[in-house]
């Protein structure tokens, strides 16, 4: 049982980490709560279904096309909608929420509300430490790790990464240092959407696809980034695995109470916040401190 818990936590945690990292990047750099984030996860999952199942393209091609198309949609959304109202904080939340609903409804019209499934990229399973692991799950975890490593390298080693971190620290000073802030915001939005798309593409074969599938991870991502500390990359990754562990534990220990998994994860988040109001690794900004 313990091995099962570990494997499931790693798989779930990997997906949540991808989603939460993108969300956290956008918040850290643009100070915007982009509530349509998991909509892109849903779009990418549907992309896999459309390209691989309906059009019968090979898996690698459909993965690439799906990620690129989703990122394009994300950038378009940013340019047309989010960028214009960035200064009004509540309006941004609301407008991105409305955008999420628009995407959900468009998917309902395009693919109907019928339950769909995408084909698995790799069939079969293998045994490690006495646990049977489906290849698809291993692929999810490894894929998530690789992407997270790439993002970490990007943020810590490249000039672009330094510019992103500088903008996150202080937008005005970064602007004075010659960093083109609006280009950085645009890039970050692209990276974040691509992360959501990767998550959606990876899990698509293991999930039932329907247009409302964006809400369960939506709530979890909110909980994760709050737990980990808004805008903290390390926090959102650790938070993802912590809350994934809580969810998996509830499912394993209370088989009849599996519907409580979301509630339990949220309860953990609330308890942590009572003792650490800025989350586990939250950054307290000088002018925002009380």
């Amino acid at each position: 049982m313990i091995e099962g818990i570990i494997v499931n936590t790693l798989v779930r945690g990997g997906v949540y980490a991808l989603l939460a990292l993108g969300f956290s990047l956008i918040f850290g750099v643009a100070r915007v709560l982009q509530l349509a984030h998991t909509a892109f996860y849903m779009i990418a999952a549907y992309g896999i279904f459309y390209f691989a199942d309906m059009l019968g393209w090979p898996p690698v091609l459909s993965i690439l096309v799906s990620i690129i198309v989703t990122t394009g949609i994300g950038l378009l959304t940013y340019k047309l909608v989010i960028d214009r109202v960035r200064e009004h904080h509540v309006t941004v939340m609301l407008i991105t929420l409305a955008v999420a609903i628009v995407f959900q409804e468009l998917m309902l019209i395009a693919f109907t509300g019928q339950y769909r499934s995408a084909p698995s990229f790799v069939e079969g399973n293998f045994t490690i430490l006495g646990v049977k692991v489906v290849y698809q799950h291993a692929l999810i975890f490894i894929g998530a790790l690789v992407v997270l490593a790439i993002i970490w390298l990007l943020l810590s080693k490249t000039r672009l990464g330094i510019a992103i971190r500088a903008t996150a620290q202080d937008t005005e000073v970064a602007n004075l240092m010659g960093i083109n802030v609006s280009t950085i915001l645009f890039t970050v939005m692209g990276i974040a959407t691509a992360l959501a798309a990767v998550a959606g593409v990876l899990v698509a074969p293991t999930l039932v696809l329907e247009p409302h599938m964006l809400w369960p991870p939506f709530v979890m991502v909110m909980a994760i980034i709050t737990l980990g500390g808004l805008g903290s990359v390390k926090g959102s990754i650790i938070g993802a695995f912590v809350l994934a562990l809580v969810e998996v534990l509830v499912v394993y220990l209370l088989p009849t109470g599996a519907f409580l998994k979301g509630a339990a994860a949220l309860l953990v988040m609330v308890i942590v916040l009572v003792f650490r109001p800025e989350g586990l690794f939250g950054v307290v900004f000088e002018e925002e401190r009380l």
Partner: protein
Amino acid sequence: MLSRFFRDFQGDVVAIPGRLIALVFFVLLFFIPLFVQQPYILRTLIFANMFVIFAVSWDFISGYTGQVNFGHALFFGVAAYTSAMLNRGAPLGPDWPIWATIPIGAIAATVAGVLMCLPALRLRGPYLALVTLAFPLILTGIIFANTQFTGGELGIPNLDRISESRTTDYYISLVVMLFSVFIMWKFTDARSGLIRTGIILHAIREDEIAARASGINTIRYKLFAFIVGGFFAGVAGGLYAHFMRIAGPSTLELTLSFQAIIWTVFGGIVSIYGAVVGVYFLYPLMEFLRVVPEFRMLIFAGIVVIILLFMPEGIAVWIRDKLERECPRCKLTNVWWRSTCRACSASLH
């Protein structure tokens, strides 16, 4: 005496277009059942009245303290379930009548508001928004775990009606709505000489640190906002449960919390009247869009996106800014067509 009242009325209400429109609108609401008897339209308006209370209470908590509450359905659901459980007598004692269950439900919602404050008041901005999101979802989990008291997925059915006729229901909801909105508006009226909370809440929203430096216990006022807002959201929840005659998990849904935010921000946040406009505009629109069920949510979300793109302050505030002009010298509100102030005749341009 009477002529003085008339003069004040003319100066403070008739001369200000926003207030005149509000007055005419509320008076019209009283006469609607005389002309319209279709039960469906009355039903829509009754729901609109309840949701006005709900949306205004969201504005009261979130707009005025700047703390976005994503879990406003918590108050609605707690009150709905409390009223329903008392009304059906289970698990304790007799069936309570409706005039007792709704106030007790609202008080239960107030208690929920205080409990929510324990973690919430330690947090600010986006953290608070995301934490409040959790509470209704946790409560939904608890409700599904205790099906013998709460009915689980099906909820608690067969509650008492508010009254025997739909017209009476309408008037009850209307009067409760006007009363609740008036009280919340008065609490937030920064110019009131009687109640200080208005100006203090505005101060907290503008600059919390400055408010604290001026000796205002901001925590106390945020708690106050949660208590008052929670109470009125609870009133709306109790009315809703008794009108629908069922209290189910849908009263705690994420969508309901978001609806409150959408209505309010659409109309104009931090204004009370914005929430009223938002509900009376969007709720009947949603009902009307049932003629095209597949595109209903799409059109709705599309309208919200477009309006907010072009009027980020909200539609009611935008219209008000077009209709009214503040005198630069004496700060009196004037109609847009005047070129000089009606009191001090300063130029308005």
